[in-house]
């Protein structure tokens, strides 16, 4: 049985209907925007993480907290299925290129032949292979912790810095741990490397890469300052790449991580799977937060809908009374009111989704900075959007149920008087 068609509302009630649909549309657009952009950014981060060449990361609390890095590389590489272990020391440093004014850059100390295998497919093309930093193993200068061997003093500069500074391969630069050129060391630029696109900011655009041992000596992270004879050999992280099928096998990744953890129980050992899981958990929490935030707007929209429908029932008392007097089934009348509420909600859902997509598109096209980047990463999860739509329809059913209940309680004799 078809519900009754309720047509030709007055101009005033038409306005109320349009306003109710707009309120729902705006309330729907908000979660569409937040969830789609948030989900897109999160998915992008997870994808980036999964494209890195390393699958296990060893880190320590505090700056440059890993000690005896060169030694750990040998120990980690001795574990079956480990392809490379790349310690990385990241230090902000002053760079002098002829003049007396320094440029602040991020210096990264790496072991060349360990660093390259830990690059992901998207990063690999940005770096020369092999890295032209002289000693591929960085062991000549390190020489079992003596740091007495010949230094390489080769450096790679990032392409953004190359473009900005005009420094070319073959030129000399001075890297100094403090704003004092005389405390610095001269390096020769032997190559350039690209900077992978970074989400939400140009992190590390001005950067240099030097051999780990050179940077450790330059910045004082080779030995402890309290007892200069004591070996420190510091780095921030050691990224571990596995070989062959092991890099895609969670059980093997976890097994190697457990072995590494047993070697360095005092450091944090996390797998890429755990990091991805953490990101996904964070994304789920954020999505929940976005939905909770949006539910306030949605509640307002649905209360408005309920009020509009109840007011329409009030204004159509006579018409409802006639229908009931004629013997139209009460369920039929209720279904008509529910259908009207659901139709309004459906219009709001469609309008809100379209509005959300349009806003995201505008932000992606005309926004600036991080907003533009985030909007361009938006993804539309049909399950999540479908759940939002289903939730709104269910709540609209509840809201129109109030109006239907009021119609059912109408005193027919009173309504016809």
């Amino acid at each position, binding site marked *: *049985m078809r519900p009754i068609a309720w047509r030709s509302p007055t101009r005033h009630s038409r306005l109320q209907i349009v306003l109710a649909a707009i309120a729902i549309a705006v309330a729907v657009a908000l979660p569409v925007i937040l969830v789609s952009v948030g989900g897109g950014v999160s998915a992008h981060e997870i994808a980036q993480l999964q494209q890195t060449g390393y699958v296990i990361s060893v880190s320590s609390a505090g700056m440059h907290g890993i000690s005896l890095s060169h030694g750990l590389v040998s120990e980690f590489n001795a574990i079956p299925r480990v392809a490379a272990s790349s310690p990385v020391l990241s230090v902000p440093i002053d760079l002098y290129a002829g003049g007396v004014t320094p440029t602040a850059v991020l210096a990264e100390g790496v072991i060349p032949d360990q660093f390259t295998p830990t690059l992901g497919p998207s990063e690999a093309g940005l770096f020369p292979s092999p890295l032209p930093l002289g000693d591929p193993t960085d062991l000549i200068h390190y020489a079992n912790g003596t740091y007495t061997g010949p230094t390489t003093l080769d450096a790679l500069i990032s392409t953004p810095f190359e473009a900005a500074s005009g420094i070319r391969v073959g030129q000399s630069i001075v890297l100094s741990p403090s704003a004092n050129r005389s405390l610095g060391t001269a390096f020769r630029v032997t190559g350039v490397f690209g900077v992978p696109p970074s989400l939400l900011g140009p992190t590390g655009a001005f950067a240099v890469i030097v051999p780990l041992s050179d940077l450790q000596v330059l910045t004082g992270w080779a030995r402890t300052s309290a007892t200069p004879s004591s070996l420190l050999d510091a780095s921030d992280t050691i990224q571990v790449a596995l070989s062959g099928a092991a890099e895609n096998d969670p059980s093997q990744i976890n097994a190697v991580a457990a072995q590494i953890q047993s070697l360095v129980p005092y450091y944090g050992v996390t797998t890429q799977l755990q990091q991805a899981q953490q990101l996904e958990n964070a994304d789920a929490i954020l999505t929940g937060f976005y939905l909770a935030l949006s539910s306030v707007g949605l509640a307002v929209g649905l209360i408005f809908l309920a009020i509009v429908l109840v007011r329409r029932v009030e204004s159509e008392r006579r018409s409802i009374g006639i229908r009931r*007097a004629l*013997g*139209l089934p*009460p369920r039929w009348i209720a279904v008509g009111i529910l259908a009207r509420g659901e139709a309004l909600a459906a219009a709001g859902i469609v309008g809100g989704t379209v509005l959300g997509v349009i806003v995201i598109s505008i932000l992606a096209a005309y926004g600036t900075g991080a907003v533009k980047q985030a909007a361009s990463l938006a993804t539309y999860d049909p399950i999540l959007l479908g759940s939002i739509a289903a939730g709104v329809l269910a709540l609209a059913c509840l809201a129109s149920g109030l109006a239907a209940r009021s119609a059912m309680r109408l005193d027919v004799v009173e309504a016809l008087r």
Partner: protein
Amino acid sequence: MNSPSPAPTIEIVRVWKRYLPSTTPVDALRDISLTLEPGERVSVAGPSGCGKTTLMNMLGLLDTPTAGEVRWNGRPVGGRSERERARLRLTGIGFIFQRFYLLPTMTARENIELPMRAAGVDRAERARRADELLEEVGLAPRAGSFPHQLSGGEEQRVAIARALANRPGLLLADEPTGELDSAATETVLALIDSVGSASGATVVTVTHNPDVAARSHRHITMRDGRVVDDRREE
């Protein structure tokens, strides 16, 4: 095709109806007992406020008595659910109101088809029956007109057609000519006479107008909520 409902025997047994407004209670009906035989043509007359419309509401199952009971073919209707009562109204009773009460957002044809739609009559049969009724009330050319495009007499003729749509056994007309001029009154009364005779339905007409009452075979007069006279013509 929806088959005609047989005219029922309706009994009003010691019915009281008391309204409780904010001030003093009002007894609209006081201990009324009546039996309407199938096919009777009954007029109910009396001064304003004597309880005529309340009685019609009882007969039409729109209202429930405070005391006493209404029986439909011997079966009390008081215990029936609202759904059952609605079904009985839909298929067994046709209402003709003083103020027509057509739905303003529907055309004449849609107004006539509405009770049939609700009763589950299929589309083709609805259309056929609506054409037949529009023809019968002389409004076939106005089938697509909305109520505001019709004269009072035409509206009431559409209301009569709507009341007959499901071939009810009981036709209740509450001051059917109260808002019509004399020419339209004659047309409408002739129509009620004609359809009443043709269908064999019981017709109850509430009226102030002696000319309207004169068309019935049984005359009930009310005063202060009571039946003070109940005469059948020989």
